[in-house]
């Protein structure tokens, strides 16, 4: 899925930014973590210089694998002493380049902090370390009657820490809300090495909602080392429907009509014909391959409301020309339908070797219009686009699929991407629904926000990280705090407490 070439310029991994020679830094890190907690070899640094985005020119400094909050703190303090930035990293499944290190910072890989620390049923909360894999958490909670609601399609790999940093979503966030609604409290190692607890288990913690500000901070506000997540009760009843339509427009219109009818399904996912065919070839989920688009709808809750909502969705679909309606008759059938949706990105390889996945949100009433525009944009640039997305909240995920060996294709992919973003904003939408800004959309931020808006976002960032030590070069565009990875270097020496 990676593709080059990466243009030279501000997102180039660049030369190391920092005062001291790397070997002294590594010595300090080894003293803090022991030799098996630090890797400074080219192989490891190369591996952790990338994430799942197209950005492949990151440059990592030493990579650390701390096992506790105290060790994270020691790593951050060592980086501070040597004038290096730090970049937290989970599983590296991010799609906006958030974990791509710029300026050879210290990479703090949290994958060894993967313990489920406590399940506190009376408070309906679980304390976890950031490296816990999303699906592992839900699998451990499910037998006790609960789960962690955010379910990104990458949930077999991505970490709760990454979910927090990107405020990630997933199909079931339509009814349950994205990660921020499921994080009650956090222990955070701030960029200067101090440890704070943000939020609390009580409903209205004292002070500013710094928990809310931290979630979605993309690793630029500090490193989460303990996370209190809300336990969501497993629904007593679930019904999963698969509706076939002759066109993506009909599927998208059905989504708008379902929401307008006051139904809040657990999930409403649309897949167009090309991706449906690829998924069928890949996992044989039982999707109709003759439909122009399919709508995967799930309703959950108490049995009465589930039955009523399922009927209403079938009826609304039929009014809008559904060519088939199937209700999963068993858990196995339901699991197969979801497997199809969740392996969709993997199935894209059936179409072409590379893809660039976009992530914008538009009002649901214009979903069908924007979707048609996306197809037109791709056609203008002679590209293939497939759409598989969280339609219920208007979250488009156009995948431009291509073969990067084709000369000049990357230019077309980038140009088409820029037009998709512009079309979404013009329709009253936003830059990103769940993948974040990272380096990918940093320079698009002025399309959505004015200078005063960006200035206030920069103020928030500065409150957490006055010296630009955490993940510099992300989120905010050039001209704002910490956008320039060289900013760290220019901080006077006396500031390094």
């Amino acid at each position, binding site marked *: 899925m990676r593709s080059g070439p990466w243009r030279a310029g501000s997102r180039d991994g660049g030369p190391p930014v920092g005062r001291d020679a790397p070997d002294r830094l590594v010595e300090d890190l080894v003293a803090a973590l022991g030799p098996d907690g630090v890797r400074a070899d080219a192989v490891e640094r190369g591996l952790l210089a990338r994430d799942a985005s197209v950005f492949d020119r990151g440059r990592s400094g030493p990579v650390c694998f701390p096992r506790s909050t105290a060790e994270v703190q020691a790593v951050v303090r060592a980086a501070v002493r040597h004038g290096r930035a730090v970049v937290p990293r989970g599983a590296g499944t991010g799609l906006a380049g958030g974990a791509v290190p710029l300026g050879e910072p210290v990479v703090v890989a949290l994958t060894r902090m993967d313990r489920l620390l406590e399940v506190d049923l009376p408070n309906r909360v679980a304390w976890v370390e950031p490296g816990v894999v999303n699906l592992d958490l839900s699998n451990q909670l499910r037998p006790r009657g609960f789960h962690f609601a955010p379910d990104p399609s990458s949930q077999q790999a991505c970490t709760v820490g990454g979910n927090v940093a990107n405020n990630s979503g997933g199909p079931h966030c339509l009814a349950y809300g994205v990660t921020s609604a499921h994080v009650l409290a956090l222990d955070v190692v701030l960029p200067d090495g101090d440890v704070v*607890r943000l939020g609390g288990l009580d409903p209205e913690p004292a002070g500013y*909602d710094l928990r809310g500000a931290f979630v979605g901070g993309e690793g630029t506000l500090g490193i989460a080392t303990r996370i209190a997540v809300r336990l969501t009760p497993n629904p007593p009843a679930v019904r999963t429907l698969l509706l076939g339509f002759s066109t993506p427009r009909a599927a998208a219109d059905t989504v708008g009509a379902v929401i307008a009818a006051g139904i809040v399904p657990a999930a409403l996912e649309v897949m167009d014909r090309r991706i449906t065919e690829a998924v069928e070839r890949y996992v044989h989920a039982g999707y109709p391959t003759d439909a122009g688009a399919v709508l995967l709808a799930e309703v959950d809750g108490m049995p009465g409301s589930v039955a009523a909502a399922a009927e209403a969705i079938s009826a609304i679909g039929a009014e809008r020309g559904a060519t088939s309606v199937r209700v999963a008759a068993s858990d196995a059938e339901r699991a197969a339908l979801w497997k199809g949706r969740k392996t969709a990105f993997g199935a894209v390889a059936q179409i072409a070797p590379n893809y660039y996945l976009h992530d914008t949100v538009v009002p649901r009433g214009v979903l069908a219009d924007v979707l048609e525009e996306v197809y037109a944009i791709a056609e203008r640039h002679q590209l293939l686009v497939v759409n598989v997305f969280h339609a219920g909240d208007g979250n488009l995920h156009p995948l431009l699929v291509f073969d990067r060996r084709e000369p000049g294709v990357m230019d077309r992919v980038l140009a088409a991407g820029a037009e998709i973003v512009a079309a979404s904003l013009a329709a009253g939408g936003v830059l990103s629904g769940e993948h974040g800004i990272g380096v990918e959309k940093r320079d698009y931020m002025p399309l959505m926000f004015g200078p005063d808006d960006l200035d206030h976002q920069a103020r928030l*960032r500065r409150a957490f990280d006055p010296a630009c030590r955490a993940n510099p070069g992300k989120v905010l565009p050039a001209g704002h705090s910490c956008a320039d990875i060289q900013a760290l270097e220019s901080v006077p020496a006396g500031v390094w407490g």
Partner: protein
Amino acid sequence: MSGTGTARVPATGAAPRRPLDPELLAFADEVGSEGPVAVAGAGTRAELGGPLARGTRMLRAPEGIVEHHPEEMTVRVRAGTTVADLHAALAGAGQRSALPERGGTVGGALAVGEGHLASLGRGPVRDALLQVRYVSADGRVVTGGGPTVKNVSGYDLPRLVVGSLGTLGLLGEVVLRTQPVPAGSCWLRAEGADPFGARDVLYRPGAILWDGEATWVLLEGHPEDLAAEAAVLARSGAWREVAGPPELPPQRWSLPPAGLRRLPEGMAGPSGSWVASVGIGVVHAGRPQQPRRVAAASEELTRRTKAAFDPAGRLSPGRSLLPALPSPALGGGGGRS
């Protein structure tokens, strides 16, 4: 543009940002950039955070609903609108919001951040705010968040302002998430029933209130489900349908939900009464909760946040988010370090 990888911002076709509401701009002019200033809401919670400094200029935020999109489940509303007016308008389209109905304004409810009595069903206020437009300490209109129901574009300024008591910016206009009014609802009451047991057996109740003797439950949803849940409750008590919740004592405590099993002593006050929101952790009581202590590093971060947004301290001066003098938290109050 050169050298910026994928983010080649198109020269044409970019969305022009929407022009700001003239009423909002007029409000920004009134706020200006000098002298202490605050917004007067309906005054229902004016005492929170401490008294405003003398000589603070009091303003009113603009009023009125700008646009309600029932089919998007969103509403754009000016901050001076009362929650009652907002909810009356939403009800016309079968919708509601998570904001509390205590007689205040939308801006006041967000600035205070306290949950609805039925926040078990409606969710916390902080999850209701999608986009915020506030006037900054230097009199500029700042927009944070976005108008769609899902958005992670940039830092989450909306969550930061919820509960900030007007100390970071003065709220002018917001986009809120709306929710459908459930098909059916009813309040049930029983003497001597176990409220925590009720919490365990009900899937998603709207509210569970408990005064130490009686328990009130708000059931919401499909009529069939209400009957089923009432039947489940009936196994553990004599539940009777009632018109609504009990009277609430004036003060409000925030405790971890499990903290309600061992309520702090002396909370009730002279009247002896209190009402707890089971599953949430709010207790309505006669005495105010002691200021809750936070660690030095949190205090420092709070101070830096205030300084970043309002360096001269002109917004709602006198109001503080943290106690001036830390004192020990009561009764396991709050999972804070």
